[in-house]
């Protein structure tokens, strides 16, 4: 009688071990976090009473909460660039999801008041001239359902960022003002944190008026609807993503000037075509078809052509 186990028993044990390992390795739980359904949110000086929404979602198969430490999901906001396993001193705890409230999947949300963000730890909201990025963190441990599985760490793959920004961008600089027909083209440079520029303009007759606004990255913006021959002073402001407005740029002057395009020259030369005042270009073939069908009908009916 041999002391070696039968070959068939070894095969069964190996198969079971492989299955257990595969179940443990393949069944990973993922944690997803976002703030206001995005991964980056900017809040400004005037947003102290604003409430953000931190959403969480756990998804996995064949997993449950680990019975040991970190069985519950903790979500917090930190001033640091990395999260660690627990909220550090000065971090803001957003909420805790008890292990008993979810099995293999779960989702929910927590409110987060701007004034409770860790950037204000030791101070009060608002803070002047401050720009700070904060990370939203989450951490828990899960265990495979199958026996003998090890608890696994679960962290979000992407950490949402909340930026508190009460720092106005630097004042943009108008590099040139190009006169156009009833318009001025304003070329400028703006700091990299500027997302928007706004134009203000004034003639000698009145105060500054609000002009158009446009993307800061374009480097130029057109101010139209002006009168030719009138000198206007123009200046621009930059805005960052949080809505902070920069000081005014340098003021520059420009005078719109009449110019003539090709069709104006054509008409000045006595050209007969007037363009399209009433019927758009696309309607002309239809008008022709109508004319041809009416003509055919009148010819068949012996009417006047």
């Amino acid at each position, binding site marked *: 009688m041999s002391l070696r186990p039968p070959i068939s028993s070894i095969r069964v044990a190996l198969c079971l071990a492989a299955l257990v390992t595969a179940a443990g390795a393949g069944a990973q739980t993922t944690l997803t976090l976002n703030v206001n359904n995005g991964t980056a949110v900017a809040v400004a000086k005037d947003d102290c009473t604003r409430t953000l929404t931190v959403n969480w979602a756990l998804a996995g198969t064949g997993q449950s909460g680990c019975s040991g430490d970190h069985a519950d999901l903790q979500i917090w906001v930190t001033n640091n660039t990395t999260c660690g396993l627990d909220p550090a001193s000065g971090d803001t705890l957003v909420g805790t999801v008890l292990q008993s409230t979810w099995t293999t999947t779960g989702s929910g949300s927590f409110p987060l008041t701007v004034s409770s963000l860790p950037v204000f730890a030791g101070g009060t909201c608002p803070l002047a001239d401050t720009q700070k990025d904060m990370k939203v963190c989450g951490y828990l441990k899960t265990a495979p359902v199958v026996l003998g599985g090890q608890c696994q760490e679960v962290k979000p793959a992407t950490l949402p960022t909340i930026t508190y920004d009460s720092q106005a961008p630097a004042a943009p600089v108008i590099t040139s003002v190009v006169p156009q027909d009833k318009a001025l083209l304003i070329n400028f440079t703006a700091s990299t944190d500027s997302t928007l520029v706004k134009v203000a303009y004034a003639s000698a007759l009145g105060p500054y008026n609000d002009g158009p606004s446009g993307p800061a990255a374009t480097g130029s913006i057109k101010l139209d609807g002006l009168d030719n021959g009138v000198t206007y002073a123009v200046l621009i402001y930059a805005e960052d993503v949080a809505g902070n407005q920069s000081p005014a740029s340098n003021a520059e002057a420009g005078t719109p000037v009449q110019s003539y*395009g090709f069709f104006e020259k054509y008409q000045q030369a006595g050209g007969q075509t007037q363009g399209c005042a009433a019927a758009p270009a696309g309607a002309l073939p239809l008008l022709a078809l109508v004319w041809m069908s009416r003509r055919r009908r009148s010819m068949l009916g012996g009417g006047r052509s």
Partner: protein
Amino acid sequence: MRAIRTAAAAAALSLGALAGPAWAQAPGTVERPPGEVGSERTVGVEVKLGGFKPLIDREFGNAAGAPYATTFNDSSMLLFEGSGERQLYQAMGTAGVGVSAGYAEKYAPAVLETGADAAESTSLRLVPLSLFGVYRFDYAAHVWGIPLVPYVKAGLRYTIWWCSKGASLESTTDGGLAIGGRFGWGFTGGLSLLLDVFEPRLARDFDTDAGVNHSYLFAEFNFADVNNFYSGGFDLSGRYFTFGIAFEI
């Protein structure tokens, strides 16, 4: 009115003459030249480029100071066109009907009262459309192996035009917009070079794999009178060459 009738009648006759033989044949029973190999041909497509100078200044007798010459330095626009045609007759040559569409644009600085260049540009943009009949004498190419195919086209044209200054359409003196369309007619004469003769095996593979029977390079001369049948106003006529590549499928 008389000119319009004459032009319309001529265009109709040209289309009718080309399409006429096809009406006598049932679809799928197109007679083919003896000796032609490959799958059945039914469609032709082509793309082409050329320099197009509209005869706008003809309205002003091409006098000094006429608007196109002074604005665009009397130079041509780059015209890109594509067309497709349905072949209806194949025996002593190939006849069919087709449509084409193109695009051309020309930019120049607008001018100030002093005559100096302004900071903003002005443009003339055209979209020429055409409905035409075509006849290609390809019998010699398919039967005798001479790789040159002369052809003619004739048909009606409609060209949409618009002018802009800066980023906006120009305004007209009556408060409208500088956009419109002009009708006309035109014909084309051209010569195609059958490329199959240079690589017959590749050509057969192209037919077997993609259904492209024949490939051509071509050059053609276009005569177009697009001025609402000589009724005055914007004259988008032209006399110009185009060059391109064509496929029969």
